[in-house]
């Protein structure tokens, strides 16, 4: 009797597992909404980024990073036929801090089911949010807790912050600091370093459904900050912040992202 019960229970469980897994493979489950997780894997060139490791950049300079943060926001998911899902803005202002693993991924909920092939986002915080009042500065936009990713005196978020040391730097302590922000100004136009990024899948698709949880792996190559189109020499410019030279750095990191692969489990 006891055994019968166990077998019965096992059978039910087995059926349940079978039916869920078969459901996942069935296109019919692409109804309703589901989550999409985007993970940002920070890299330096071909390997994972590690603080404290000396790398040689494309300009032949040795650099060791000890800080690497950036904002991503205004996400849009696109299907092959061009239809798009614009993620509600306030759900996805996200700050990636390399030293805080939990910040490396963000989950977008309630995405309409379907097969998506592109991810669009902005590096930085748009001008509307950058000039908003305190009630809107919560979560990753909280200026008290966002790891100094905000310029108090020239109101605006810092979009990308990279700090480290390099024997090529002529600054005290051989440091280099790249703090890039500026959203275009409020009443008076200023530099606009907001960059839009569109990433496409290669082989996979991002399959969204109510019983699915796809994970999109984006590689962020910190090395690109030094790269093209404007080779950045630490020897010549170890500190770039709110100056016109920031435009060159923003142009470099605009293409530091690559959609590497998708886990459609």
């Amino acid at each position, binding site marked *: 009797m006891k055994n019968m019960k166990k077998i019965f229970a096992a059978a039910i469980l087995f059926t349940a597992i079978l039916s869920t897994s078969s459901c996942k493979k069935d296109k019919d489950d692409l109804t309703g909404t589901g989550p999409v997780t985007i993970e940002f894997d920070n890299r330096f060139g071909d390997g994972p980024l590690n603080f404290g490791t000396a790398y040689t950049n494309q300009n032949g300079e040795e650099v060791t990073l000890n800080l690497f943060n950036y904002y991503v926001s205004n996400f849009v998911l696109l299907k092959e036929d061009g239809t798009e899902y614009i993620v509600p803005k306030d759900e996805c202002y996200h700050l990636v801090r390399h030293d805080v693993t939990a910040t490396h991924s963000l989950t977008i909920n309630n995405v309409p089911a379907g097969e998506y092939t592109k991810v669009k986002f902005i590096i930085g915080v748009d001008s509307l949010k950058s000039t908003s*009042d305190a*009630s809107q500065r919560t979560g990753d936009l*909280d200026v008290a807790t966002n790891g100094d990713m905000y310029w*108090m005196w020239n109101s605006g978020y810092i979009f990308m912050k990279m700090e480290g040391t390099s024997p090529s730097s002529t600054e005290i302590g051989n440091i280099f600091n790249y703090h890039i922000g500026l959203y275009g100004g409020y*009443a008076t136009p*200023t530099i606009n370093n907001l960059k839009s990024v569109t990433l496409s899948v290669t082989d996979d698709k991002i399959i969204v459904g109510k019983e699915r949880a796809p994970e999109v792996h984006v590689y962020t190559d910190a090395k690109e900050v030094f790269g093209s189109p404007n080779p950045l020499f630490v020897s010549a410019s170890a500190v770039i912040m*709110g100056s016109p030279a920031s435009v060159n750095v923003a142009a470099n990191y605009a293409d530091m992202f690559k959609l590497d692969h998708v886990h459609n489990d």
Partner: protein
Amino acid sequence: MNRSVLIGVLVFGLVVYGSSCNKEDDGNDVEFRVPSNFPSPTYNFTSNPVTKAGFELGRKLFYDPLLSRDNTISCGSCHIQTSAFTHHGHGLSHGIDDLLGKRNSPPVMNMAWSETFFWDGGVHNLDLVTPNPIENPVEMDLNFSVALDKVRNNLDYKKMFKAAFGSEEVTSAKFLQAMSQFMNMLVSANSRYDKYVRGEGETLTSDEVEGLNLFKQKCSSCHSTDLFTDNEFHNNGLSLAFADSGRYNITLNPSDMGKFKTPSLRNIEKTKPYMHNGSIGSLESVLNHYASGVKQSATLDPLLQQNGQLGIPMTEDEKAKIILFLKTLTDTDFLTDRRFAEF
């Protein structure tokens, strides 16, 4: 339906009337009002209306040296009510460790109408003003998040946050909103001039009226409206070389080199010394500067170099009358309002 709405409105009106009446009775009326001679405020009160509890929390924070690294400097240290919330007599203010700042402490008044903040206009929203002096190494020198932690660990504040925002939780948004509520209440609109233009039975002497007319001709292009500022940035010819790049630091536009925001002239008698760097000590010297001291430079305001002549032509008599008028902008009610005081 209509009737019940009407009754609702009436009851609401009575409640509002009743409660404001009570507050007036204990000298603690806290309600933001737009003076009839002022334009519409720029601050968005929908997301942060002024309440009595929020205002009182903001006032406590404004006067609390807890917000500085060594608990010695409060906002009120350099923004003193009797000097229209400036640092009386200080060209440049000394903050923590007696370190000097680089600009003259600006008055905190009529903030709800300001489009930008600080001499260079680098901040666009009143809510985001407060972290600046807290974090500035020569002012209060405290990381904003540490300042919040210090507030969090204080029992009095827990009660006040609960009263103001319904929960004891101290967040940066609530902290900043409370500060804005206090600053928004600092409205100066009750000078002799105000009562005169609003027809409230105040009269100006004939010299003062002449001064007002001269002011309109010679000064009001920049010191415009009854806020006495155009909220714009100008180079008023103080120097040839710019020790402080001013607005240029924000816009990085060479045409903004050496420009600073037009300050209001309200309570000007009480806010000496003058200019962004506090370099001029008296109103007489200010007018002498505009009459004969303006220096030519690439970004000098066009209004200060008309008809091939530098500055604004003024006779001694005209200067004296303009000063008489400027003194009618002193708002004693504001300078002595008990609600705004530390104790």
